[in-house]
Each structure stands twice: as structure tokens, then as C-alpha cells.
């Protein structure tokens, strides 16, 4: 009898080349995505005159800086922004790396594009110089974000040194109430455990509520693992996974597909496998959730009220609460549904897949948004599919802007910014101070909840619409 093993350990062990005396593993990397921000790493490589070890397993994606009003490079006014996109094209060309560039019909946000193109597959070890790389774990692979020095290391060697993290199983049992999404599950667990609550752990999401999630929803859930501090998040692959993957451009076909499938079906935690920590949520307890503060842990069910620092006994925590409320321009005790918003953003690798756009459009259909806003599909393919279904018309008729795909207002690197002092209901992943622009105030929520906020002109409960 072999010892029962977790899904995480199975995938890790399959990639371990060797272990150092101090216990670090040298891991083989299957897929490496680079984006415009990876220029520091390419510069390091050039300084040392090193080649890219495996250009065939490296993929370039233009997403962080791409404009959402045009697909033409020469139409970008900011020379520095244009330079970032050109630099990625130069670096990938020079090293023979496939590029999904600005005008490629496959272009999209890296964490939307990878799954969509079938590059993301069960059992792989995937990295990218972007913290939301945890998204890809939805397929039962180990996927995590790395810094520029590590990007340079992977480019040069196709390997990475890592210490094996502890394992946490986050089980959600039961049935989610109508209108409750993966975003609500994520904001709920992060608000309970804290933004560093899963630090040092790899999470495996399990339980009947997780099994019933679509592939898109699983991607949203794993995407947000990093917001709870986890190294990565993963879900054992099942028929939902295989059905999604079959027929994708980079997915195996014929005999190789059958071989892969036989392996993928072994990728689950054995009965009795040991987890260092178990957390359980009851699906029925999860309500539509929004953030009110400046960290994803500062989240509450929509029928709640802004917390009161005076009720907080710990001095440090009370001070932090006051600081968050001050930045967000909120009054203690205020009802969340009384918070008026200035604009909305529907986009980002967290919530801009077809299912997300459908959910937002379903709420907006036949209504006008009381505030301006942008809708940026997660990929150019998602954009085409949404247009084929007429979702673009729904957004435009509601008064929102239908844009091209990119990171856009999630991080504002391309110039799509929330003006200082304005309040934005957003489907993104970070409500940090200044994340959507200096002085911008962000409230995170699901696409349907953003649509409800647009219609109401304030934070609103989608269940009441």
C-alpha cells in the first residue's frame, strides 16, 4: 500500500528534479507565460548573455499595457506604454517565443487566454510573473506567480527552486443559493481567514459546491487564492474540466488525448491524504458579498453595515479600520446599500469570461446604468463570442462602453483609470489603495452585483432586482 497522497503532492512530485540539502526542490516548469512587465527579466538574461532554455514552452502575451480603445500600436499616444508592448514583441521575436500580441485574434488576459487556448492542462506546473497565475489551478495544475528574478531563472533554465508549501483543504459543502457565485465564496473565506490567512499553504478546493461549479467559476475561485495569501489554489480535474479542454487549440488530440486523459483521471487527493489544515464552509451561508475597505479581507454580505472602529477593542485594529474608512470616504454604521457609486468596471482575469458577461448582461438588459462604466472582455475570443450573442448591445444600450480586451482598469497601466476620489464598483480582485488609480476607491463584487450597482447607482443586492 502506498501512502495516501494529496493532489498537490502528486503534481509536485512529478516535477521534482532534485532536492537540495536544505530541502528546497528544483522543479521542472511546463508552461511559462511572459507579459510586458517581464522586461526586467529579459534584461537580466541579456546582461548575462543567456539564451531562453525552452522557447517552445514559453508564451508571450500582451495584456497589462494594451489599449482598450484600439488594436493599433501606432494609435497609442503614450510613447512609454507603446514601448512596453514593442519591447515584449522584440524580446519574444529575438528568442523565438510564440507571441499573442496586440492584434492577434487570440489575444487576451494571460489567465483567460491560457485556459481558452488549451495551454492550461491538468497536472502541469505553470508560472508567470503575475500573482494571479493561481487562476490556472482550476484545472488541477500547480500554478503560481513569481517575481522578475525567478522569471529570469525560468527563462534561463526552465526550472525553479521552491520550498514545498503546507496543504490546506477548503471544503464548501451543500448548494449555493441562486445568484451566489465563486466571487462570493472567495470574498467570504478571505474575510474570515484574513488576507494572509492562507499564507504558506497550497489550497485544494473541495466539496459538493465546488464540484458543481462551471470551469469559468472555478477559474474565478482559484484566481482569488492569492488574495487570501495562498501560494496557489487547485481543484481536482473531473468531467467538467475534460469537457472544457477537449478540442481546444493546444489540447492533445486522438491517441495523445487518451493517454493524457488516463493520467489526468489519477489526479485527485487519495482518501485519507493528510492536510495540514482543514477549513469548511456551508454553501447555504454564503451571501452576495462586497468589499468596503482597502484589502480583500475587508468584505461583508451586502445586507451588512460599514464597521465601527469604536466597537473594536484592539487599538491597532481600530486604527486600521479608521484608516480604511477614511480612505474609502465611508461613515461607521452606514448601510452598504446606501453607498453611492460613481462608475463601474466589468473586466479582469477574475471576472471577464463569457459566463461573467452573460451574468452582468442578464441584470442590465432593459435597464440604464445610472453611472458611466467600461466593459472589457477577458480575451478577444470572449469579445467575439459575446458579440455573437448580442451582449455588446445590452451593455451599450445600458450606457456602458464596450471595449477591447486587456487588464484595463484592473490596474490602470494602459491609462484606463478611476479618477481620484471616485468610487467604482468593480469585478476585479484588488481594492488596494490606488490600485485603480491614485485616490480611487474600489468595491469588489461579482459581475451581477456590479450590474445591479450600475442600475441602482449605489451598492445593491442583486437578489432584490
Amino acid at each position, binding site marked *: 500500500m502506498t501512502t495516501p497522497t494529496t493532489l498537490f503532492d502528486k503534481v509536485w512530485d512529478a516535477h521534482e528534479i532534485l532536492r537540495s540539502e536544505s530541502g528546497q526542490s528544483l522543479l521542472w516548469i511546463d508552461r511559462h507565460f511572459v507579459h510586458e512587465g517581464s522586461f526586467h527579466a529579459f534584461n537580466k538574461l541579456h546582461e548575462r548573455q543567456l539564451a531562453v532554455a525552452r522557447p517552445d514552452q514559453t508564451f508571450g502575451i500582451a495584456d497589462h499595457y494594451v489599449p482598450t480603445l484600439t488594436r493599433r500600436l501606432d494609435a497609442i499616444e503614450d510613447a512609454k506604454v507603446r514601448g512596453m508592448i514593442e519591447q515584449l514583441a522584440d524580446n519574444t521575436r529575438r528568442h523565438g517565443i510564440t507571441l499573442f500580441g496586440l492584434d492577434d485574434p487570440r489575444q487576451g488576459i494571460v489567465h483567460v487566454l491560457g485556459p481558452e487556448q488549451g495551454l492550461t492542462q491538468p497536472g502541469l506546473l505553470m508560472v508567470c510573473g503575475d500573482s494571479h497565475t493561481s487562476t490556472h489551478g482550476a484545472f488541477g495544475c500547480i500554478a503560481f506567480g513569481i517575481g522578475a528574478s525567478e522569471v529570469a531563472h525560468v527563462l534561463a533554465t526552465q526550472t525553479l527552486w521552491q520550498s514545498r508549501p503546507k496543504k490546506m483543504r477548503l471544503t464548501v459543502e451543500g448548494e449555493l443559493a441562486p445568484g451566489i457565485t465563486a466571487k462570493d465564496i472567495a470574498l467570504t473565506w478571505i474575510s474570515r481567514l484574513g488576507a494572509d490567512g492562507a499564507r504558506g499553504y497550497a489550497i485544494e478546493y473541495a466539496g459538493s459546491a465546488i464540484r458543481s461549479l462551471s470551469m469559468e467559476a472555478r477559474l474565478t475561485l482559484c484566481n482569488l487564492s492569492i488574495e487570501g495569501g495562498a501560494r496557489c489554489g487547485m481543484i481536482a480535474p473531473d468531467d467538467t474540466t475534460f469537457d472544457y479542454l477537449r478540442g481546444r487549440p493546444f489540447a492533445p*488530440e486522438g491517441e495523445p488525448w487518451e493517454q493524457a486523459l488516463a493520467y489526468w483521471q489519477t489526479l485527485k487527493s487519495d482518501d485519507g491524504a493528510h492536510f495540514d489544515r482543514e477549513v469548511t464552509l456551508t454553501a447555504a451561508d454564503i451571501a452576495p458579498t462586497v468589499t468596503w475597505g482597502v*484589502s480583500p479581507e475587508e468584505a461583508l454580505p451586502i445586507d451588512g453595515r460599514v464597521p465601527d472602529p469604536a466597537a473594536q477593542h484592539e487599538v491597532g485594529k481600530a486604527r486600521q479600520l479608521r484608516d480604511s474608512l477614511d480612505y474609502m470616504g465611508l461613515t461607521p454604521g452606514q448601510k452598504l446599500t446606501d453607498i453611492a457609486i460613481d462608475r463601474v468596471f466589468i473586466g479582469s482575469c477574475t471576472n471577464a469570461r463569457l459566463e461573467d458577461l452573460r451574468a452582468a448582461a442578464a441584470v442590465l438588459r432593459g435597464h440604464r446604468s445610472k453611472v458611466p462604466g467600461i466593459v472589457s472582455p477577458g480575451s478577444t475570443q470572449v469579445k467575439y463570442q459575446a458579440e455573437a450573442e448580442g451582449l455588446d448591445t445590452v451593455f451599450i444600450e445600458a450606457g456602458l462602453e464596450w471595449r477591447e480586451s486587456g487588464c484595463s482598469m484592473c490596474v490602470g497601466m494602459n491609462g484606463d483609470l478611476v479618477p481620484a476620489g471616485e468610487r467604482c464598483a468593480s469585478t476585479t480582485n484588488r481594492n488596494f489603495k490606488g490600485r485603480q488609480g491614485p485616490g480611487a476607491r474600489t468595491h469588489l463584487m461579482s459581475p451581477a452585483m456590479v450590474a445591479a450597482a450600475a442600475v441602482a447607482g449605489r451598492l445593491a443586492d442583486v437578489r432584490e432586482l
Partner: protein
Amino acid sequence: MEPIKIIDALACPLPLANVDTDQLIPARFMKEPRSVGYGRFLLHDLRHDGEGRPVADFILNHPQAAQAKTLVARRNFGAGSSREAAVYALVDYGFRCVVAPSFGDIFASNSVNNGLLPATVSEEDAEALLAALGDAPAVLNVDLESQHITVGELSVTFDITPTWRTKLLNGWDDIDMTRQHAVEIERFATRYASSCPWLATEPSQLIARG
């Protein structure tokens, strides 16, 4: 990379929790080449008000802050974005060590790769250190060999992953270390490719299915 053994210099108190990497360096500065020096971008939007004027009572605007080599903060320091630029900003400003009760995972490994020591202390010890520093830079001693931090009479221990400690003590670089294992890597890659033949990356068609 310059090895670290003892850092005996001024330390800045930054009594904030959740100082994420978006705050450490706002995204709009990340288009700049490293050669411009990232120190001026460090905590830019906390250091300056809406009109770009320095905020008088912010610690990094203290006349002695520029000589500091250690920063002491509250929990979850460096959470969020994987941007190594956050570490460049700290290092270019002059910091060699950050002390906090917890760090963002990716931030911590980025730090070590740039010779910046992420020293983990308990919440109580972080509070004690912050109290000992007060509201101005003060002398603080970090000893990486014995894993102790000392301010005046106060001495506390800190945690660091053993591999990271070794790397920092020796100023080692990962790429050099890894290249010594070229043969093992090659052997692994060959065996791996034959056991997972479906991993070749030729797309079967150019556009995703609808």
C-alpha cells in the same frame, strides 16, 4: 549580490498593516528602466499628497530616513502583486531588511533574490519594536547569523527560511547554483518528455473554438 551578516543602522517605523506592493510602488512607475533608480517611487502615494507635495509627518520624509537600512512594519507586508519593482524601490532607497509579522509569499522570495532580508517576528515583538522606535528613525541591529534584532534594551528573535538565510549570508545567486545541475536537469527533461508525450505545444488550429 552583497552578503548580509549584520545590519547595524537606522530603522524606520512604519506602523501599518497590509502594505501591499501596489502601495510600495504604484503601477504607473513600472514602465521606467531600473537605471533611473526606483528609490524615489517607494511608497510614493503615501509620501506625497494629491498635489505631489511631501506629507510632512510621513516617516520616509523624515530628514534621517535616507540613512535607514531597516523598515519595521505590521502584518501582511508586501501582499498582492508579484511586481519585483516593489523590492527594487526598497533596495534602491537603501533598505536591506524589512521586519514584519508576515509577508506576502512572492514578495519575500523576490526580496531574497535582491539581497533584502525579510525578517519575520511575532505580532507582539513587532509591536514592541515599533514602540521602541517611536516615531522617528532610530538605531536597530539585525544579526542574521544569530537571528536577533536589538533596539536599546530590547532584543527579539526572528524567523527566516534556512535556505534563504544561507543565500543571504553568502550573497548567492540562483542561476549560478542551478546551472551546476545541468546534467540532472537534462536527464529529467528527457525522461519527462517521454512519459508525457501529449505535452508538445503545436496548436492543432489557430483560433479557439466558438
